[in-house]
Each structure stands twice: as C-alpha cells, then as structure tokens.
C-alpha cells in the first residue's frame, strides 16, 4: 500500500551512462556493453576505459584517473588519513562506510594530492563515485578545502575531477554546509589570483554541482556525463514532464552555456597541459 505514496511515475528511460554496468567492463570483455559492438582497439579500451567504437566513457576510478593524467611517479597524496565518522548516529551509516571502503578500496570519495601534469606543478583532487556515490560529507568537504588551501600556500593551480550524487544525507545539515564551506574557500582561492579547473564526470549532481564543481575558472566536461542540480528521475517524477533527449548530459551543458568545453579522455591531458601553459602555470598574479 505504500508503494506509490509519493505518486511516483514509472521510471523514465535512462541514458546509456546508467544503463551500462561499469563492472561489466572487465579486462577480458570482448564487447562494449553500450553499443554491443566488438571492441577493436584493445589498448585504448583498457587504458582509458573508452569504447573505441562508440566513444562511450566508462567510469574510471580515482586512481585510474590519477595514473592517466599525472606525470609518472609525480603524485604525492595529501590528507589521506581523513575518514568519516557517524556524527549524527545515523542508522546504518557505519555499515555503509565500512562496505564502501571494502568495495572501493578507498577511505573516502575523494583523493587529493600534489601532482605534475605535463611538467606543471598542480594540486589535483579526484572524486570516485564507487565510494557512496561520491557523496560529499565532512571529509570530502574538508579535503576539497585543504586542497585549495595547499594550492594557495604553494601558489599552484587547483584541478578537481568531480563525480558525485550530491550531499551525503547521512551527515544531515553538516553535509549540506560543506557546500557553503567549499564555496567560501574557493572565494579566497579566486581572490589569490590562482587558476582553478574543474572537470565534470559522470555523474556530477546536487550539492557538488551547486558548489565547487561550478565555481571554476574553466569548466571541462567529459563526453556523455550526467551533470545537473536535480537528477533527471526526480524532475521527471515531480513535474510529470517528459525530458528532452540528451537532457543534462555534457553536450546539453555545453549547448546551454554551462561548460567551457567537452574533452574526450584521450585528449584531456593535452588540453590541461595547453591551459597550464597559456595560464603560465596557473599562478599568474
């Protein structure tokens, strides 16, 4: 009887991004689960997790992204021992944290560190949606702030790769306030004259999109990523609205003026390198 209290309509058809099972892409996979075509370029499929046929960008873990973008052996992790606590004694949160740590092999939904990209010194923060959907609680908020502060201290640019469903509800208002906290630190960051680049990956929604992800000097999106404030399912359900094709994907974002550019994974490092060069290392002040 409680099945339809909220007046839920049938779930809307999902974009390929959610249809494709990330775990389906194992090393031995012969076909792309999105386009069902045979993969031809084994190398590019494995290293960048992009289907050579349909260009579908599969989820990438934070460590894979770090390996992919940074100069070899240049990454030095910062604040790696920051872990979440169950501040509100929220039912089931402790178990969820344990399970997330076990399944993802991570301590939290973001990894921050100092890294060289194409010979330029940067602070790089990378979110990972395999840890509780990349949700932002105290730790994610704090690590983003510390990353920005470290970049200010060293006077080097800040690059954040986002992947998040939004604020972590198990931390209640404290998680919501991380939006204010990261935005406040970024205000100082911008005043200090340093460069901040955000790279939006699938998915970037809710509290993360409405705070630090949107406050960069340059906003780059990965092709086909779901990016928005309210998720498409909620919009479809609440408004009873049929959603336009490609709604909230990176291309939609670009068309509506919400992102500077879309960069395929294969060209991302080169683009970052060019920007860092043009912006004189990102510390022109």
């Amino acid at each position: 009887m409680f099945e339809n209290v909220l007046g839920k309509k049938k779930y809307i058809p999902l974009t390929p991004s959610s249809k494709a099972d990330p775990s389906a892409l194992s090393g031995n996979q012969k076909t792309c689960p999105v386009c069902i075509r045979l993969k031809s370029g084994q190398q590019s499929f494995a290293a960048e997790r992009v289907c050579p046929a349909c260009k579908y960008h599969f989820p990438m873990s934070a460590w894979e992204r770090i390996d992919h973008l940074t100069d070899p052996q240049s990454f030095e992790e910062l604040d790696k021992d920051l872990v979440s606590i169950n501040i509100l004694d929220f039912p089931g949160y402790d178990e969820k944290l344990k399970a997330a740590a076990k399944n993802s092999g991570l301590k939290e939904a973001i990894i921050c560190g100092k890294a060289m990209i194409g010979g330029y010194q940067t602070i790089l923060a990378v979110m990972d949606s395999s840890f509780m959907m990349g949700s932002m609680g105290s730790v994610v908020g704090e690590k983003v702030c510390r990353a920005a502060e470290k970049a200010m201290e060293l006077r080097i640019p800040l690059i954040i790769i986002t992947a998040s469903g939004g604020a972590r509800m198990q931390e209640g208002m404290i998680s919501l306030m991380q939006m204010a906290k990261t935005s406040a630190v970024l205000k100082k960051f911008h005043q200090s004259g340093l460069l901040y680049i955000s790279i939006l990956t699938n998915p970037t929604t809710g509290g993360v999109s409405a705070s630090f992800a949107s406050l960069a000097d340059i906003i780059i999106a990965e092709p086909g990523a779901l990016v928005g404030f309210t998720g498409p399912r909620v919009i479809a359900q609440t408004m009873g609205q049929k959603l336009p094709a490609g709604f909230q994907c990176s291309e939609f974002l670009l068309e509506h003026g919400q992102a500077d550019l879309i960069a395929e994974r294969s060209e991302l490092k080169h683009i970052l390198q060019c920007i860092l060069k043009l912006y004189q290392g990102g510390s022109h002040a």
Partner: protein
Amino acid sequence: MLKKYFDYENNYEKLQDKIKELKKLSEQLDYNLDGEIEKLERQMENIRHSKYRNLSPWEKVLLSRHPERPVVREYIDFLLDDFIEFHGDRLYGDDKAVIAGVGSFEGHALTVLAHQKGKGTNEKIAHHFGMPHPEGYRKVERLLLQSEKFKRPVLNLIDTPGAFPGVGAEERGQASSIARVLMTLSDLKVPVISIVTGEGGSGGALALGVCDRLFMLANSVFSVISAEACASIIFKETEKTQEMAAALKLTAQDLFELGIADGIIPEPVGGAHLDFDATALNIAECIRKNLQELTTVDMNRLLTERYNKIRSIGQYTESISNF
C-alpha cells in the same frame, strides 16, 4: 498514509466547540457552569502545552509546512516600513519564488531576500511553491552586490522545499546560480542575518543561509534532504519517514545543538499561525538585537568570523582507520 494536519489540532477544535456549546447551554438554561467550564479550559490548555512541548521531529516538519503557517510576505509587511520589491535578474526573467527588495526596519534600511511560498492554491502556483529558478538566485546575487555597494545589511528569510526541479531550471544553470550565491555571501562586506521561518529544504534553501548569524523559528526545520525522499532512497519505502525525520537532525533544537543555528526564535504554543503578531514581534526582537551587534563589529573581523564559522563545520577523524 501520512497526514498533513495534526489529529489533535482537530480534536482541540472539537473540544473548544463543545466548551462553547456548554457556555451557550449554561446561558440558555440560566445555570451557572462557569467553574466547570474554566476547569475544562485549563485542562485543555495543559494538554496542549505538554503536547507542543514534545512534538516529534516529523510533527515539526508538518508544522513547518502547515498550510496556515505565515509566509515571508506577511513577515516582510509586518517588519518593514516602505518596503519596495525589486524584480528581475537582468538576464532572463523575474522569479516569483523569491521576494527581493529594500525596506526600513525600525529606521534602518535593509535588503530583504526571501523565499515566498504563497498561501492558497493559486498563489502557491504563482510563486512556484517557493522553489526558485536560476533567475531567482541571480536576482539574489544582483541585490547582494547592490547591498555591498550601498553598505546595507541583508536579511534573508528562508522558507522553501528546495530549488525548482525542472527542465528550464537546469537549462539555465540551477547549480551554478546557487554556487555563485554561496560564494558571494561568504565574503559579502555587509552584515547578513538569515532566519528560517518555515521549511529549509536543501541547497535551494542554503543559498540564503550563508550568513553571520542563522536563526530558526522554534518550529522550523532545515535539512539536507526531505525526510520523505531520504526514506524512499535508503529504505525504498516511505513508512520510515518519521524515523528519518528524527535521524536527519533537522529541527531548530537539533541544529542549535549542532552549532549550525545560532539561536532559536520562540513561537507561540501550537505554532506561528496561531498568533502571527507574537511570532513577528519575536522575529523583530531578534533582528533588532543582532543588527545592533553586527553593525558595530569591524568589517574585517565580521568577515573573518563568518569565514571561520563556515570553514570549521564538519567532523571527521584523522587517525588511520580501522576498516
């Protein structure tokens, strides 16, 4: 099914009618029942008081959304003289979910930015139930910068289920419009007071909640997600809504204890809608006191304190984890 109104609210009304009948009867029959009636009335008040002192978090959520609960426009009209509403974001349109304007509070010019839910179906639809579009947040940003230019303190009144969930809102940059307001408020060079008058729903509410001092009416709530949505996400069922309302720690009292709210503004027994004037006077007292304090603080100190307060929110451990 979850009720929108309290059962006991109706019961009190019924009891009150019965007492009235009794009064009438005693007049008609010329039989003195004054003593009994008075006793009954006292008893009823006692029950009411003890009930309202012990409202559950979910009951507070319902009270914060009560259809009769005063909306921000009523408070604005009561609190400010010569209030002039300003419209538009100068980019796309005017958002009726946000009231923005300037008025005089006891002789001091204030910028007021508020979520307007509206009362009654037509008004609610016209105001989008208090759920702002990006235009609303850009109107807010525009007037915040104007306040800074004219060194005019800002009063934010929060009462919204959240930012508007719609295609147009996403097309026009809902996320970045909220983010920009958060960033602007964090360093705005005038005193900012925010008051949650009803429902504080998620990021759409937080955009008006970055401030020097955050107050909450005693029966207002402020939450990262609605209890219903939380229950439906975590348990895939809405039966757990009441439990989630408690777990989210969303009441004024919880948030005061957590250090998110700086103070609680008392409401009359039974809620703001039962005595609007008393509630509005309590709000006025709060604004008067805090405005006086904040306007005398040196601007650098004000900004540093605001920043430090926001920067310090969050709890975690830094030791090597056990799992």
